[in-house]
């Protein structure tokens, strides 16, 4: 009886910290955010915050721009990562694999800010690339390479390479090389083997990587504002503006809810569309 009681007590002692953490730092704050988004400054119920989002052309434009470039950056990251992941798992392996993995992990450990800073050093008007172009005589005046949409893409791809490559490497590693050989023996060529055997097997890794990278892009702030400057047009900036600059928690909350809802729906739809199971994919 006494041991049963102490067992029960022990269970509650383990349960409490988890409930406090999930409850106070995760569930309740999001409920609060949700409620605030339906209130005006006087505390009355309103749909105006959402109406603002849907009827103001600028907000809509910024949102669509963010989604478009998040998808574009994700696709470029995938296009760059997949060949690299394939090469180091199926063609080279060994030492080259270790070097490439380290090279992909290293920038990640030095924080996004430093990663972005390194690209500012390269791209700005008095930066390295501009200097090199001038020394080579390709241009006679300084060139400003920052603050373009493609600059933002370079930065986004750079900061997310790791999150795409690791899942793809993991899924390719479980592919038995003899399957690839069998495909060749049966008359397949490089492209048909790639299409019929390798890519289907890597699909879960591609999916996990794409979801992670897309979410990181969508929620990005540092890379887009520093490399994109005033033209960055990223939705997270609107959220920041409302909360910090205009002290309008209600509008900011509505924007946050829009961003969160969209990303959850987008990922869910993507998983449904490709018939992937999230628990399997993770």
């Amino acid at each position, binding site marked *: 009886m006494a041991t049963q009681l102490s067992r029960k007590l022990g*269970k509650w002692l*383990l*349960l409490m*910290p*988890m409930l406090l953490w*999930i409850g106070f*730092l*995760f*569930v*309740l*704050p*999001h409920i*609060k*955010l949700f409620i605030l988004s339906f209130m005006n400054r006087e505390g009355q119920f309103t749909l105006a915050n959402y109406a603002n989002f849907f009827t103001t052309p600028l907000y809509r434009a910024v949102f669509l721009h963010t989604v478009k470039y998040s998808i574009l950056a994700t696709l470029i990251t995938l296009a*760059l990562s997949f060949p*690299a992941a394939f*090469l180091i798992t199926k*063609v*080279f392996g060994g030492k*080259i694999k270790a070097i*490439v993995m380290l*090279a*992909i*992990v*290293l*920038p*990640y*450990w*030095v*924080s*996004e*800010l*430093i990663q*972005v*800073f*390194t690209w*500012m*050093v390269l791209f700005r008007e*008095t930066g390295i690339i501009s*200097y*090199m172009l001038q020394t080579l005589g390709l241009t006679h005046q300084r060139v400003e390479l920052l603050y373009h949409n493609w600059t933002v893409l370079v930065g986004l791809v*750079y900061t997310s390479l790791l999150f795409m490559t690791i899942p793809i490497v993991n899924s390719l590693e479980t592919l038995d090389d003899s399957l690839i*050989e069998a495909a060749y023996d049966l008359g397949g060529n490089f492209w048909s083997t790639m299409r019929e055997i390798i890519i289907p097997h890597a699909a879960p890794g591609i999916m996990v990587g794409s*979801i992670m990278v897309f*979410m990181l892009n*969508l*929620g990005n*702030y*540092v890379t887009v504002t*520093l490399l994109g400057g005033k033209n960055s047009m990223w939705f*997270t900036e609107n959220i*920041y503006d409302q*909360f*910090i600059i205009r002290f309008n928690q209600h509008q*900011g*909350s509505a924007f*946050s809810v829009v*961003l*969160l809802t969209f990303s*959850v729906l987008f990922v869910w739809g993507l998983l449904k569309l490709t018939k992937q199971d999230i628990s399997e994919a993770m």
Partner: protein
Amino acid sequence: MFATDKSRKISLLLGYGYIFLILLYTLGPLVIVTILAFNNNPSASFPWQGFTLDWFKSSTPDRVGFFDDQRMMAAVGTSLKVAVAVTVISVLLGINNAFLFVREQFFGKGAFYMLMLGPLVIPGVVLGTSILAFSYSIANALDAWLGKGAGTFLRPGFVLVVLGQVSFIATTTTMVITARLKKFDIALEEAAMDLGAGKLSAVMQITLRFLSPAIVGAAIIAFLFSFENFNTTYFLSGPNPTVPILLYSRLRFGISPEINAISVVLMISTGILGLIGFALTGEEQA
């Protein structure tokens, strides 16, 4: 894999070329920043004008090095304090949650586990704003109930930054430690108790010792995540910024050679920590 010897050679060559380009893309910028950190050129660019350590240590009016920059050093102090607090809380939570999810059965366990993974897929900005809005209302309620100032600790500042970072870092520590605890053979703990050890000392000496690589690994990951976090911290930090927040506010106004030096110091220190953490947790995550 490739039809003829010649096309095979070309393919391999292309493969090497591609790997080289990837290495250039990932490491090139870091190498250039490292070179610039020692370049005696105040514009933080090429051409090379000789070797200098001024960007690390110097306090002349026109050249302030990293280690003599009062505000930056204060930010390093704040970041370290935050990171230590976040690491301790997140690792303790992680150990607690690992035992809870591996050993206990309770109502809604599967649902709680999924909920716990939430912070992994929620944008950091949303996490930051939700915690800011929630703590703001609690602080106001405390002020109204206990008098002005009672809720101050929940206004943007040290406590809020720590809580905000714990909200998502504890997920990572829980996952790392849970993965290791799942591999533990509970018979070992029972054997220790059969040999006369109490429950507590059996857990302390056998189970926690088994978990120690995962605990150290999780601690390093938590420390690094905390030290480099921007998105969530940005909304919650008060008058004493952490390093990423201060760096951001400076980068908005341009580049100084000092930031090259800061980058080098951060690269070396976080690189070393990261490699240790990678080695300790690599086997669980692979």
